[in-house]
């Protein structure tokens, strides 16, 4: 067989929401909004530079309910760049861009081959009269796909190399079981040399041996603070013996990162600021050339805890740290939020003894979520969470959230009652 190279990408989520960004300046907003497009353009650059033979896109390239013409046009232009270089793009539709919601308004360029949702289709990839590989793929019809699509995939036995292009949740990765749920064992058992998977946003190789590779390329650009670390595509090389080598190439234009800073040994705000600054400097060294959106998570028990409970203090810290970002046109490290997970140095026993009221408070708050407590809290939260607008525009509180918030509330009240008292 002949050696060849391809790029495996997925989950571009064109026009998807950037959740958890918070309010940012116009400049930064612009950069963030264009980040996804830039990542895709970088992928095209990579393809041209590496002279790959084809490109695989494993679903969720855009978000059906949000796609804009502007982005479509950009995507089309980039795809045309590949077309000009004679590079074909094989893509499937995932749960965010299913076939039934045809909301891509522009015509796809001729070099884009889209797999249908009726059945698993297979395409022989022939270049200069030589068959390089066979690609089997199938798109989602609807946003839900409870059926395991991989079961429908079967390659021809004559193909020199076989690729399965699939949007799926493998072994429960990526949420509920309505995204073509399958298992790694089943995928490996099938006669495919490479499973190009989409859906899970974290890039990972699930399996790799001499005959088979199963990989999620992840999202090309992190879409929320949770999607931290480098994001991009796999550049896959197949040699003349059919051996597969995959290399992760970071494309994200803006990288989300979280740094944890402990306040345990810090006694002053200046010290805290210095420590954070150092950590931010580390980040900018790690991600030269990219923009970094940093979440600062403050942890540990320490004297600074009380001060950090005040939102103005946090705002001040952020403002001070943001002084380092003057421009967002090139590389930057932007501390976009601070998560305070610190604890006060409270000796609860002592507090209970010294202050009978607080002893009583701890007793009340630590009651296993009794129906009375639950009821009263639910009642207290009603005004907002049962507000029709809030129900429509805000996300509901999950039980998990509620119990962690309750814990935080307890500590907050204790903190306030103690005041400056140590």
């Amino acid at each position, binding site marked *: 067989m002949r050696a060849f190279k391809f790029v495996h990408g997925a989950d571009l989520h064109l*026009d998807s*929401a*950037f*959740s*958890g*960004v*918070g*309010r*940012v300046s116009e400049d930064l*907003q612009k950069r*963030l*909004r264009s980040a996804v497009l830039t990542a895709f353009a970088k992928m095209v650059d990579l393809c041209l530079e590496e002279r790959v033979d084809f490109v695989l896109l494993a679903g969720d390239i855009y978000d059906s309910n*949000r*796609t*804009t*013409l*502007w*982005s479509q*046009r950009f995507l089309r232009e980039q795809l045309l760049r590949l077309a000009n270089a004679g590079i074909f793009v094989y893509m499937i539709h995932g749960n965010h861009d299913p076939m039934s919601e045809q*909301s891509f*308004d522009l015509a796809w360029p001729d070099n884009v081959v889209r797999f249908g949702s009726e059945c698993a289709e297979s395409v022989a990839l022939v270049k200069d009269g030589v068959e390089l590989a066979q690609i089997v793929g199938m798109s989602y019809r609807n946003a839900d796909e409870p059926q395991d699509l991989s079961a429908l995939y079967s390659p021809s036995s004559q193909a020199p190399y076989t690729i399965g292009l699939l949007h799926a949740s493998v072994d429960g990765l990526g949420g509920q079981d309505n995204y073509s749920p399958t298992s790694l064992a089943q995928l490996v058992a099938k006669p495919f040399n490479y499973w190009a998977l989409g859906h899970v946003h974290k890039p990972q190789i699930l399996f790799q041996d001499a005959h088979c590779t199963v990989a999620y390329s992840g999202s090309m650009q992190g879409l929320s603070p949770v999607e931290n670390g480098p994001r991009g595509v796999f550049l896959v090389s197949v040699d003349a013996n059919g051996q597969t080598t995959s290399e992760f190439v970071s494309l994200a234009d803006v990288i989300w990162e979280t740094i944890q800073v402990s306040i345990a040994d810090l006694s002053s705000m200046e010290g805290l600021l210095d420590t954070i600054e150092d950590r931010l400097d580390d980040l900018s060294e790690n991600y030269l050339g990219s923009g970094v959106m940093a979440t600062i998570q403050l942890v540990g028990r320490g004297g600074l805890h009380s001060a950090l409970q005040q*939102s103005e203090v946090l705002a001040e810290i952020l403002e001070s740290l943001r002084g380092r970002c003057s421009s967002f046109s090139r590389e930057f490290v932007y501390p976009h939020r601070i998560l305070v997970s610190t604890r006060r140095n409270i000796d609860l026993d002592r507090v209970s003894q010294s*202050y*009978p*009221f*607080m002893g*009583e*408070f701890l007793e*009340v*708050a630590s009651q296993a979520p009794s129906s009375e*407590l639950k009821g*009263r*809290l639910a009642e*207290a*939260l009603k*005004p*907002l*969470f049962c*507000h029709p*607008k*809030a129900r*429509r*525009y*805000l996300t509901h*509180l999950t039980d998990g*959230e*509620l119990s962690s*918030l*309750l814990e*935080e*509330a*307890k500590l*907050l*009240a204790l903190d*306030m*009652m*103690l*005041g*400056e*008292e140590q």
Partner: protein
Amino acid sequence: MWIREIDIEGFGTWARQRFQLEPDLNIILGPNEAGKSTLLHFIRSVLFGFERRGQASRYEPLSGETHGGRVLLQLDNDSYVVERIGGVSGPSSGRVTIVDSQGARFGEEMLPNLLGGVTKELFYSIFAFGLWELEQLDSLSRAEVNGIIFSAGIDTPVPIVQVEQALQKEADELFRKGASKPVINQGLLKLEELYQEIQDLANQPREYREAVRERDNLLADIETTVRQLRSLRSGLAWAYTLASAWETWQAWQKVRVELENFPAVESFPVQGEMRLEELLQRLAEQKTSLQQQEALLAEREGLLAEIPHGMILAEHRTEVLDLAERRSAFLQNMDRCKKQAGKVAECRKTVEQRLAALGNGWTQERVQAMQSGLEMKETVRSMKARLQELEEPVRSRKVRLQEAAAKVQESIEQVTNLEKKIRSLSERIHSLNPSTYDYEDRRKAFNKFRSSSEEIRTLEAQRDHLRESIAALEHQMSGLPLESLFGTRFQRQLMGLVGFGIAVLLMAALLGFLNYRSSGLALGAVGGTLAFIGLGMRVLLNGQTRQERQRLQNKRKEVETQLQERKSDYQVVVMKIEKVQGKAASAATICFGHSEPADEEIWTCQQALDEEKQLRTRLQILQDELDGAREKREKAEEERKRAETQVFEAERTMADALDQWKSWLTDHGLAANLTPDGALEVLDGVMSALDAVRKCEEEETAQSVLEEQIDAYCRRVNRLRELFGENPVSPDSAAEAVFDLKSALEEYEKLFTEVKKQRDTVSALREQLQATEGALAHLLQQAGAEDAEDFRRLAAIYMERQKLQRDLRELEVELSSRGAERGFEAICHDLEQTNAEMLEERIKALREQEAELEEMVAQQRTRVGELNQKIASLEQDQRRSSLHFAYDTLQGEMNEASRRWAKLVMAKELVAMTRQRYEKTRQPEVLREASSFFFQMTAGRYQRVFAPLGEQVIRVETADRRYLTVEQLSRGTVEQLYLAMRFALIQEFARRSVILPVIMDDILVDFDPVRLDRTAAVIREMARKHQVLFFSCHPHVAAALLGSGQQGKLIEL
């Protein structure tokens, strides 16, 4: 803490006023407008700041004093002066200065410490209040009062009410039901707006798709319409072409018909008519010309016949022309012949003259005989030269002879002269020295004498020196004794001195020994020392004398040796002097004649010797000159003899030459006495005569030749004349005859030529005429014409036909070009089918259709443009993406805020729950105390004040266990309730913080006398712990307060 002193600078009606206060009860009594409330406000203002500018309660000073003043606060053992001064500039609350008892100064930040952290609101409503505040417990927020009331027993570091309030406040800032300002309320509204906007934009893709579809359809439509338009336009263009070709086409048809009806003359000579006219005209001209030339010929022939002898002249044409040619030469010869005759006569005359010049005997024949004249002349010249040559040596040799004789004479005189000089000089020398010794001997003797004298002087000096030296040595010798006298005497003197010293010392020793034993001992020691020195000296001197003696003996020996040497030298020098003196004496004898010359003699002798030496030198020179002169004389004589011999030889040669010359003259028949020059002269004359003879002969010959030529010419002329029968002519008229002949010949020949030429002309003209006639006939034949007239008629027909055919062709070309690619046939075909009116109608209809289609395309294009713009703007539109972003970020923010809100609300809820449980179990202390105060004030009418659980209200319980709300109480009772509550709070505050003064402004006016007394008792009780300032305008109130014990200070204003 209590207020010790109030010091007002200026505050409302107060100016420069000072009050001293007591730590317990102070009653300030004064009528209305005495300034009691102002004083209350003064204390409030100093402690918590002036009211804002423009408010009445700010109490700007009416008297123009400085606004403000100070209060002196006493805390336990410390006192602080708190000063607050207002002013136009600075904060409206005034500037605060605090000075403690040690003089340390503080700023306003010190105040909360002094006041136990009481807030302004709390102080105003609980610690410093008037009737109005008393009634309006609402002036303090109910929550705050409740908080103070209910949390009175809750001992958290931060009051629990404060915590709840803070939590509630923060939560409310985030979200409040029904409000619009809180963050989440606003955020939700904004989210809704954004959502709506996004929804509005959700139609974009559909709009886009529709726009693209519509545009593409339109573009297809446009293409169809444009195609239609194109074909319509081509039809219209053809209709225009037909219309424009219509007239041309009609003209073409007309010409075609005309041509068909025209007589046929298919061919005709090219330019025939013109050519015919030309030929006819030429013919006429040629005829006229021929007639003229023939007449001219006849005339010329007549003239030729008239010339006489023409034929004969023409026959002898050569002879006539030759004679005519030679005619001028002939005339010249005639002239020259005459001149030659004159020349011959002249020559004859010259010959005769020259012969006469030679003298008699010379005839022409004799001269002719002397043909060799030139040679002779040459001989004479050479002879003459020889004679001259010989004369020169004779003369020069004679001159040399004379010179030699003169030289001989001169040398003889010179010798004689020198001999005379020598003689006189010898005599002079001789006279100078008559001595017998010759000069050289004397000179040597003199020199010897001189050198000897010199030597003697040297030796004598040597001798004298030696003599002195000997004397000196002898003297020295005599000075050197055999032993030294000096040394002996010195030793002896020294010894004497030493001996004396010793004696003295011994004497002294003796004396000392007798008188003072000790000093005698000392003197003895000195004496011993001196004796020892003396001994040592002697030994030393002895050693020295022995050495000196040895040295003197050596010296003496040395001098003796030197003396001996000098004496022997002296003897030698003396002997030398004697010997040289002898030599000098013998030399002197030779020079001076005696042996001892005087110095003068020596000098004279020296002079004489020098002079003699000079004279002798001169004599020697003269002798040498004489020898030279004698030798010269002999040589001059020899020279003279040689010159005489040479003169003689030259003279003999000369005589021989003269003899030769004479014999030559005789030989040639010339006079022998002739000198060579004379002979030459004669010969010249002969030669000249001979020349003249010869020239004469030449001239005569030339004349005869000329005469012969003239005759020959005349003969030829006369021969010709003979042919014409005319008489011969003389040479003089021969030239004229020849001229006539030649003229006649020329005239004949000229005429003959002209006639011949004329004949040629006539014959040429005849030929031309014939040719023209031929051409004319041919032309007529070509045209098929019978004559010229017929020819002309045919030509006219042919021309007209030609024109018609040309017109037809032009029209056809025009029609073809109009028909363009469709061509001539098509246009003719279409034109045949139609007419002008039909065409016009067709054009009109087509144009209307065209306009319609154009309008349609324009509209479609405009729409396409609009759609393109819309498509582009939709493609470029980033609003949706930007809205999504805004929505997402805001949603994220709101989610976060809602979580924070939930946390705050839950925290507050937890605290509230705890508090409620707490309240359930423990009766708040403050209410218990308030109950007690209320009980006292109402004289037991009400026994309890309480706040039921879950209700933030106060209720009272009467003695008969009725429960009443505040609203159910009388005004006075409410005031008593609130006063009781205040007092309870004051005590609660004091327990928790500091004790503060209580200032009340006439609050007991509504109290009945019993309750007044009861309350006054409570106040007095209160004043035990707290300073109380009570302002009143009622003396009975003041009296009640003072009570029977007259406790407290009364200040009357």
